[in-house]
């Protein structure tokens, strides 16, 4: 048996789902869109094992985008999904009429329904009284009061569901609760023959009427529906006639439904005549206050940033140490050779890179779930939308953008809170511009190689100034990019901001735990596979063919014979550098040298850039190898800095001039280098097109910006 759970956003649908199913939710995908499909199992005494499907929250079944068509596909069991035997419609007691609107739509399709009224405690605080018997009589389906978070009423809900599934005749109103005007009824009848012929899942006249109406309402929005063209053509013809007659479908449908809901409201709901001030009102007076509200907002964002930037550090180190220990253990038990190198430098390094993101992802989702669950996230968007709107972004884009300063990977996952696909894609495209923490080692190394720490400007060192400038500039760039992309690539109509501010509530701990668990699982399985494959490819590029020149081998033998350990170590580093130069990556670096030369980079930097594609901080260790000081070079190591400062071009000029350094830092600031980011963008957008667009637009801009800086600088005589 299959049961669907439907309801408005914020109605507590997911909490109820979790309360009913326990921790066994399975996450799947709908083909082609970004919405996830959650399923869970529920055991009922009489009906047996029931599969529960969580339909994404929606205010209406009308599909205004491909994502929104999911609701109807699930409810009718189309496109290979099983048709639900019943649906639980979750209603928010504090906004009952708006929720009843969705219930009416579901009932029109003759789906057997149990209505679960959630948030009763909040409604009581709002002094709202609801008459269940009257509701039951008006809508002709069972109404059960629940508190999903407190796990109240769950038993009654299960019993009602069991009864409905186990007994034959499901409670469905025999006719629609509202009456479409005669003209509209005629239009619906026009579509009846084609629907009867083409769609066998619409067995009854009422179902066909409901589907015809859904088609007309959805087709007004110019969305690509997953319905046979012959039906769409027919429906468009009817719609054209309606338009030509100057009729107003909103009035004939939406207003009629609300007329029914309102006509009976005196029977089922009592609101206090005098508006009683709710606890949420009192909290909001402070939390959205022009002064206090902003301070609290900044404080909360500061905590999130701090958690991503530093609290996650010990956990990341711990994971790194774990993988380090594993590598050392393998080094001991396995003979040196291809397999050992592949395992340690390819696979474990790759898996380690993936798992290393977990602490940040968990921290970010912990905070986002807390903020979302309590209702604060909507307030944060309310407060900051005034600023974000000016650059064409949604108020909800703030948290992902801020998180991007720590790491783009969790930040891109955080764009999930943005409802509209356009706004979400736009945010996703600019998040990688925010200067993430992985760029810091590269900046530090470059600055250290060019500007001695002793150079001061007042009491601030040059390096600090430059670093500060980079952070400011990258943030400005991200905002400018959002402005430009929003007016060009993502032109379309920006989605209006229609954001519900749900009453404040305590978060549901079980749902919190499940979110964290599910997010880690999805990240590890989807992004993890791509990251692992790419690490192995990069490893092959950097290591093969990996021949040491005979000359050096000979000298090494000599040094070994003479017992000169210092000389031997120097030669080993030299051999490593030579192997890298001969590797595919080295050859690639030489190959791309003509392309990057106008930016002031030589082939060694080219190899570093290839390494940086694995992760930006890899640039540092790759440089360590290229400059022959071994791969444990880090951004603070003076040896590497000195080697870079001393490096000369064939013509004797310094490689690392300030101009080259600035050009390279600009490149790092803009270019799309991190494959983990790309893996997440791919798994979140489900689109290679946008993934490649991201690479092309960022790396293209980076190239042009570096080119302008370097060549401009040369013209000014700075080189």
């Amino acid at each position, binding site marked *: 048996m299959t049961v669907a759970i439907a309801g408005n956003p914020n109605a507590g649908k997911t909490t109820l789902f979790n309360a009913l199913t326990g921790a066994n939710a399975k996450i799947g995908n709908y083909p082609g869109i970004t919405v996830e499909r959650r399923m869970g199992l529920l055991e009922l005494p009489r009906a047996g094992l029931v599969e529960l499907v969580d339909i994404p929250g929606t205010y209406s079944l*009308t599909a205004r985008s491909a994502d929104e068509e999911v609701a109807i596909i699930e409810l009718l069991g189309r496109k290979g999904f099983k048709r639900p035997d019943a649906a639980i419609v979750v209603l928010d007691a504090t906004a009952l009429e*708006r929720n009843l609107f969705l219930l009416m739509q579901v009932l029109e399709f003759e789906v057997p329904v149990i209505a679960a009224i959630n948030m009763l405690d909040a409604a009581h605080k709002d002094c709202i009284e609801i008459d269940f018997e009257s509701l039951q009589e008006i809508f002709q389906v069972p109404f059960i009061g629940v508190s999903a978070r407190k796990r109240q009423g769950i038993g009654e809900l299960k019993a009602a569901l069991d009864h409905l599934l186990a007994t034959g005749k499901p409670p469905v109103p025999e006719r629609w609760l509202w009456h479409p005007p005669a003209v509209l009824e005629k239009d619906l009848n026009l579509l009846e023959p084609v629907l009867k012929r083409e769609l066998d899942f619409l067995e009854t006249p009422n179902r066909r009427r409901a589907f015809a109406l859904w088609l007309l309402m959805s087709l007004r929005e110019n969305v690509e529906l997953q319905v046979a063209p012959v039906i769409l053509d027919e429906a468009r013809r009817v719609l054209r006639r309606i338009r030509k007659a100057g009729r107003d479908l909103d009035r004939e449908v939406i207003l009629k439904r609300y007329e029914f809901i309102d006509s009976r409201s005196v029977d089922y709901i009592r609101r206090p005549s005098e*508006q009683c001030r709710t606890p949420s009102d009192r909290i909001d007076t402070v939390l*959205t*206050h*022009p002064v206090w509200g902003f301070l609290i907002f900044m404080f909360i964002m500061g905590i999130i940033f701090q958690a991503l930037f530093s609290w996650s550090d010990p956990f990341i180190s711990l994971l790194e140490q774990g993988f380090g220990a594993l590598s050392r253990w393998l080094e001991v038990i396995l003979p040196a050779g291809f397999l050992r190198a592949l395992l340690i430098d390819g696979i474990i390094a790759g898996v380690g890179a993936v798992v290393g993101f977990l602490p940040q992802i968990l921290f970010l989702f912990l905070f986002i779930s807390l903020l979302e669950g309590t209702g604060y996230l909507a307030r944060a968007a309310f407060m900051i*939308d005034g600023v974000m709107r000016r650059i064409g972004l949604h108020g909800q884009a703030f948290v992902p953008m801020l998180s991007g300063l720590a790491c783009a990977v969790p930040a891109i996952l955080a764009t999930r809170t943005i409802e509209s696909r356009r706004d979400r894609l736009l945010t996703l495209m600019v998040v990688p511009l925010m200067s993430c923490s992985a760029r810091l080692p590269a900046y530090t190394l470059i600055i250290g190689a060019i500007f001695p720490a002793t150079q001061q400007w007042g009491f601030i060192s040059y390096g600090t100034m430059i670093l500060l400038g980079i952070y400011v500039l990258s943030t400005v760039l991200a905002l400018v990019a959002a402005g430009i992309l929003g007016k060009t690539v993502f032109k379309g*109509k920006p989605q209006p*901001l*229609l954001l519900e501010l749900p009453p404040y509530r305590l978060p549901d701990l079980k749902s919190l735990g499940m979110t964290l668990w599910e997010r880690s699982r999805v990240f590890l399985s989807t992004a993890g596979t791509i990251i692992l494959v790419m690490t192995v490819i990069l490893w092959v590029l950097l290591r093969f063919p990996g021949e040491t020149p005979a000359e050096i081998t000979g000298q090494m033998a000599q040094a070994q014979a003479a017992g000169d350990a210092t000389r031997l170590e120097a030669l080993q580093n030299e051999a490593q550098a030579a192997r890298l130069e001969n590797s595919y990556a080295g050859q690639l670096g030489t190959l791309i040298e003509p392309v990057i030369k106008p930016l002031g980079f030589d082939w060694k930097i080219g190899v570093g850039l290839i390494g940086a594609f694995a992760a930006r901080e890899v640039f540092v260790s790759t440089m360590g190898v290229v400059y022959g000081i071994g791969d444990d070079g880090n951004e603070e190591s003076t040896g590497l800095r000195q080697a870079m400062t001393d490096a000369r071009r064939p013509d004797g000029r310094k490689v690392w001039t300030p101009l080259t350094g600035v050009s390279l830092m600009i490149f790092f600031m803009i270019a799309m280098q991190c494959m983990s980011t790309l893996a997440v963008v791919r798994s979140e957008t489900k689109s290679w097109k946008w993934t490649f667009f991201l690479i092309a637009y960022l790396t293209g801009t980076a190239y042009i910006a570096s080119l302008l800086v370097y060549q401009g600088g040369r013209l000014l005589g700075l080189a």
Partner: protein
Amino acid sequence: MTLDKLQMGTSARLMHIDSSATLRSRLLELGLTPGTDVSIVRVAPMGDPIEVKVRGYRLTLRKKDAALINCQKI
């Protein structure tokens, strides 16, 4: 008058919405139907968006969109 012109704390009765079809039907589905009472709960610190209370819940919308909603002060 239009909804964006209302002062904080005042109430009004909704009349018609003139707007592009998408936004209009969205607002109607959210229950902003003619004859419904709304009140302006607060305005965001930067003057936009606004928070309205309608049918027992709170909805945030930008002033630009609120300007398409006609209402009568009560």
